[in-house]
C-alpha cells in the first residue's frame, strides 16, 4: 500500500474521531442561550463527519480512482453554509460597512475556483464548492471588519499573501519544469505560514481570553484558509493540511463553547 495513501487514510480517520468528539460535545451546547449558533455548528460538524466517512469508504473501496460528483460534495457545501449561518446568528454589532472587503473576497474566490477548474476540469462541483465557501468567506470578512477581530495591517498582509499565492499558482501553467518546482515550494511556504499564523492567532485568542466572538471569527478564518490551502495541495502537503484542519477543530469548538456561554 502506498505510504501517502496510508497516511491520508490515517489522517482522515483521526479527523473522523475528532469530528465525532466535537459533534457530540457541541450538541450539549444546544441548551444554552445562543442555541442557534450551537445548532448550526453541530449540524456543520455532522455534515463534515459524514462527508469524511464517505471519502474514507470511497478511498478504501475504490483506491486510485477519481471520485465523480457525489453527495459528499453537497455535504462540504452545506458545511460552509451552516458555519456562515451560525456566524450570522450572533447578534450583529454596528461597524463600518465592508463593501470593499466583500468585493475582494468575491474576487479571491473567483480566482480560486478558476484554478480548481483549470486543475480538475470539473466545472459543476468546483463552482458549487466555490459558491458555498465564498458565502462563508464574505460573511467572515464582513464580521471581521465590523469587530476588528483581525487588525487592518494583518488583513492587508493576509490579502497580499493570498493573492501572491494565487498568482504564483496560476503562473505555473506557463513556466518550465525547473521554475515550477521553485514556485510550487514558495506557494507551500506561503500557505503553511498562513496556517501557522491563524493557528497561533486562534490559540493566543483563547489563552488571553479575548472577545469570544472575535476568537470564534479567527478560528473560522483559520478553517477557511486551511481548507483553501488544502485544495491547492497534493501528496504529503495535502496530508499536512488535512492534519492542520483537524487540529483547528478543537480550537473552533472551544471558541464556540466560550461564545455560547458568554
Amino acid at each position, binding site marked *: 500500500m502506498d505510504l501517502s495513501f496510508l497516511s491520508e487514510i490515517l489522517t482522515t480517520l483521526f479527523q473522523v474521531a475528532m469530528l465525532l468528539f466535537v459533534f457530540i460535545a457541541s450538541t450539549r451546547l444546544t441548551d444554552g442561550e445562543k442555541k*442557534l449558533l450551537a445548532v448550526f455548528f453541530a449540524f456543520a460538524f455532522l*455534515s463534515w463527519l459524514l*462527508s469524511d466517512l*464517505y471519502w474514507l469508504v470511497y478511498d478504501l*473501496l475504490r483506491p486510485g480512482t477519481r471520485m465523480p460528483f*457525489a*453527495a459528499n460534495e453537497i*455535504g462540504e457545501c*452545506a458545511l460552509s453554509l451552516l458555519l456562515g449561518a451560525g456566524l450570522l446568528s450572533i447578534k450583529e454589532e454596528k461597524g463600518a460597512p465592508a463593501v470593499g472587503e466583500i468585493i475582494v473576497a468575491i474576487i479571491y474566490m473567483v480566482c480560486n475556483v478558476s484554478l480548481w477548474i483549470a486543475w480538475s476540469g470539473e466545472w459543476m462541483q468546483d463552482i458549487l464548492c466555490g459558491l458555498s465557501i465564498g458565502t462563508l468567506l464574505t460573511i467572515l470578512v464582513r464580521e471581521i471588519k465590523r469587530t476588528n477581530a483581525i487588525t487592518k495591517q494583518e488583513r492587508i498582509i493576509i490579502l497580499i499573501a493570498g493573492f501572491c499565492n494565487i498568482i504564483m499558482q496560476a503562473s505555473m501553467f506557463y513556466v518550465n519544469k525547473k521554475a515550477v518546482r521553485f514556485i510550487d515550494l514558495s506557494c507551500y511556504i506561503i500557505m503553511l505560514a498562513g496556517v501557522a499564523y491563524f493557528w497561533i492567532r486562534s490559540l493566543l485568542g483563547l489563552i488571553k481570553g479575548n472577545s469570544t466572538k472575535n476568537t470564534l471569527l479567527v478560528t473560522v478564518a483559520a478553517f477557511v484558509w486551511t481548507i483553501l490551502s488544502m485544495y491547492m495541495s497534493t501528496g504529503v502537503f495535502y496530508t499536512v493540511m488535512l492534519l492542520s484542519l483537524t487540529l483547528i477543530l478543537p480550537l473552533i469548538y472551544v471558541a464556540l463553547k466560550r461564545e455560547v456561554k458568554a
Partner: protein
Amino acid sequence: MINAENILICIAAPLLISVIFLKGSSKRFGISFLIGMIVCLLSAYIGGFINLATGMGVDDTAVFISPIIEEIMKFLPLAFYVIIFNPQGSNILQVAIGIGAGFATFENCCYIITSGAEKLHYVLIRGLSVGVMHIVCILALALAIVLLRRVNALSTPGLAGGLSLSMIFHALYNLLVSEPGLSSYVGYALPLLTAIALYVPYVKNKKIIDEDDNEEKL
C-alpha cells in the same frame, strides 16, 4: 425494462380511492404515501436522463447521482408541506414517514418485478435495507426540520444542512453496497442500525414535538 407508470397506476388506484374515504391523520398518511410513490417514479426519470446526458453509466449514476436526486425529490414535497401549511411537529413526521414508505414500496415493487421474488433472503435484504433506508433518511430530515423550527433556524442553510445529511447517508449506503464482500454487509446493516439509533433522538425529541403540537393548539 419495465413499465413503471403502469405499475404505479395499478398500486396507486386503490390507494387513491381509499384516501377519498379516509379522514384526518390516516388521509394525510395515505396522500403522502401516494406522493412518495410518484416522487420515486420522477426520480427514476431524472436519474435516467442524467445517465444518458452525462454518460456516467447506470452503475455510477446509481451509486453517485441517484442519492442526490432521490433525497431532493423526497425533500421537495416535505418542504412544500412545511412552508405552506406550517403544520405541527407530529404531522411533519407523519408526512415524512408516508413519503419515505411510499417511495420505498414503489421502488421495491419495481425491483421485485425486474429481478423476481423467488429468493427470500434477497427480498428480505431489499426490504430491510433499502426500504428502511428511505424511511430513515427522510425521518432524520423531518426531525432536523422540527428541531430547526423549534430554535427558529428553519432557514435555507438549515434546510440545506438537513438535506445534505440525508443525501450523504443515502450515498454512503449506495457506495457500501456497490462492492461485494464485507462492505456490502455493513451497508445492508446500516439502515436498520441507524433506525434503532434514531429511535433515541426521536424519543428525546418527542417532548419537543409534543410541545410544538401544544403550541400550535394554543
